[in-house]
């Protein structure tokens, strides 16, 4: 059988593979041990998050450029967003990151009920975030601030007749600058939309995890999935914190 022999090293060949402690059932066949498996999965998740950073990076680059070009338009347009809703949503997401972290801790310490509860809370908070986002989007739709054919400039050309602009005591923008508010809203919808898409995917996975966690899937030692999902959820959270600062708080320090 020389044709199926690996490089056999007479002295130190075949380390104690198969001896010692029994392998847990969740150890995939191609890993040597559980540590290697968890290590590889965690590392893979970080690399994936790196690709996500680059994905959002394109949008942040566009934001950086246009904000520098059209600063007055960006300030006026950002006054159309509700800081109250934005702050609430930020708080909701940060709290959901806390419940997610609790979930990871519960999985690691094998507390099934705690895990299910934390996941359910995270799930609900995610829905609350999307609910608030829907309210914000519907305001934009009503005021025709969605870029495209129906885009309406009156809030920026005539701020005295616009509650939000008046509250921020905005001055009327010249027409060519006012038109650039559409670029702001393009980025607003692209960035928050991409973020919301990530939230929706996260919430769907959370639903699946709650289902599995009730059956005790993650509380018998195999916590990689929960840990990696936790990383994803925190990542989506961090993206929002940047979006909140960049989109809502452009001129609030003045």
């Amino acid at each position: 059988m020389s044709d199926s022999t690996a490089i056999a090293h007479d002295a130190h060949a075949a380390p104690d593979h198969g001896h010692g402690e029994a392998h847990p059932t969740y150890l995939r066949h191609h890993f040597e041990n559980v540590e290697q498996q968890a290590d590889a999965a965690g590392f893979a998740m970080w690399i994936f998050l790196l690709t996500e950073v680059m994905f959002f990076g394109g949008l942040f680059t566009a934001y950086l450029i246009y904000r520098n070009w059209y600063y007055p338009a960006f300030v006026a347009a950002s006054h159309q967003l509700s800081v109250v809703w934005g702050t609430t949503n930020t708080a909701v997401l940060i709290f959901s990151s806390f419940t997610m972290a609790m979930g990871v801790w519960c999985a690691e310490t094998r507390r099934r009920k705690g895990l299910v509860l934390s996941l359910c809370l995270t799930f609900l908070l995610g829905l609350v975030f999307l609910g608030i986002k829907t309210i914000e989007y519907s305001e934009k739709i009503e005021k025709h601030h969605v870029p495209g054919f129906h885009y309406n400039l009156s809030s920026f050309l005539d701020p005295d007749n616009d509650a939000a602009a008046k509250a921020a005591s905005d001055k009327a923008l010249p027409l060519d600058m006012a038109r650039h508010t559409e670029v702001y809203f393009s980025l607003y919808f692209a960035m928050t939309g991409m973020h919301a898409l990530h939230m929706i995917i996260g919430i769907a996975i959370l639903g699946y995890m709650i289902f599995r966690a009730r059956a005790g899937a993650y509380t018998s030692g195999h916590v990689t999935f929960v840990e990696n999902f936790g990383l994803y959820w925190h990542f989506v959270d961090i993206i929002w914190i940047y979006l909140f600062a960049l989109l809502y708080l452009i001129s609030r320090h003045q």
Partner: protein
Amino acid sequence: MSATIVSLPDQSTARIPKVNFITKENGLLSWLLTGDHKRIAILYLISLSFFFFIGGALAGLIRLELLTPQTDLMATDTYNKVFTMHGVIMIFFFLVPSVPATLGNFLIPLMIGAKDLALPKINLLSWYLYIAGGILAIYTMASGGVDTGWTFTTPLSTHYVNTNVLTTGLAAFIAGFSSIFTGLNFIVTIHKMRCPGMTWFRMPLFVWAHYAASILMVLATPVVAIAIVLIALERTIGIGVFDPTKGGDPLLFQHLFWFYSHPAVYIMILPGMGVISETISTFSRKRVFGYTAVAFSSVAIAVFGFFVWAHHMFIMGISNYAVLVFSLLTMLVAVPSAIKIFNWTFTLYKGSITFETPMLYTFGFMGLFTIGGLTGVFLGTAGTDIHLTETYFIVAHFHFVMVGGMLMAFLAGIHFWWPKITGRMYPEKISQLAAVITFIGFNFTFFPQFILGTLGMPRRYASYPPEFQILNVFSTAGATILGVGYLLPVLYLTWSLKYGAIAGNNPWQATGLEWQIQSPPLTENFTVTPIMDHEAYDYEWLENQKAKEVASVG
């Protein structure tokens, strides 16, 4: 050319091992649901070849149209669609996944002594994404095509054309995720799955090259993904990020697009360079000269590759200072590429060179890639670029790198590892002939295009002034020869599946771990986890191994 290093087992007694990854399970489902990196590599090989021949047929149509100065074979807008689909299919569905998804998939676990890639399910998912993207691309072609060129340049793609930009974009988007998952898998595998003793500087250079390419796949691809999303939003809703009438900047699209698409050419060429490092060492019986320099030059190409994208935009209205900086950085990429070429050449020096087919392709690669790379320096020079850009000089340049370089490397690799993949040798004489035909056909096709470009023939037009016809006839005639060169391997490699000589474990007397196990390998590759106790390309170690084996058998 009589000298050869091929050592095959005695054909009268030799047979293919009864148990291997191909015979382990039977039936279509066992392939479609497999997690085995070797089977996924074969799925990729079959689907890639399919797309290559579609892309190749489109190239044939382009060359046929350009046989005469008039537009006689097809209308101009059809011609635009044909060259666009040729580009989209060849880049996203052949060149980007070609070596990594087939040979890389098959060999990286074998070379580093692992049982599989770290994430087998993600690996299978990446193949399904590739197929989904490919089907979408073919559907696009069948339902009217797209005519923006593979670059989707705005505002043409967002405002002016009424063809299938959305579906093509989606196809590229999906294929991009396939590529991200492949790269991610390789990085994790190379970091976490190496066998005992397999330090970073004992890894074959093939693995180093794939590592560098994977970094590019993971970091650059998402940027083109978001650019495509923005194009889609611009076309459907009319958001204004790239629309100058609303204050958006179409140049921003090009920055985002080339931030991926320039590194993408290194995604395409680096794995090919990995193949060349293996073949050149094996067929000169020498350790690759300057192993460490070659390993780091792969990483250097990946790193520099991120900072040169704007050289595609010298005439697009970027600032003079940007041109200056990007021109300089572009020249810098020539350094690690030259390090590779010089080190390979030094590897040949005083080596025992033999001329089996993979080595012929390797020589083809070295010559053609050098020409392709040096003409790249012409184009990186701001002054000459303004004269040469958007002419056939560009077309010739990137085909020298991609077809003369990458495709040669792909074929070198396929021939080199064919005995490992299938357990059988390809027929040597006819494959040497095919390699020579490919080389001749290639030069006939693409060298005249350099001249056409310097004379001023623009790319992407279906018609041209009559004085350019003679060189175009040359080019089209060459393409025919090239076509024969590519069809031959399909025929004789298929033939060899049944009638090829039994290869045995190590027909080339090569040193890699993959050659020390049976061909075709077992499903989990190694019966015992190997321990790497020597440097890569250590031919003395191999001699000792053989001596030991003879002694123990005797």
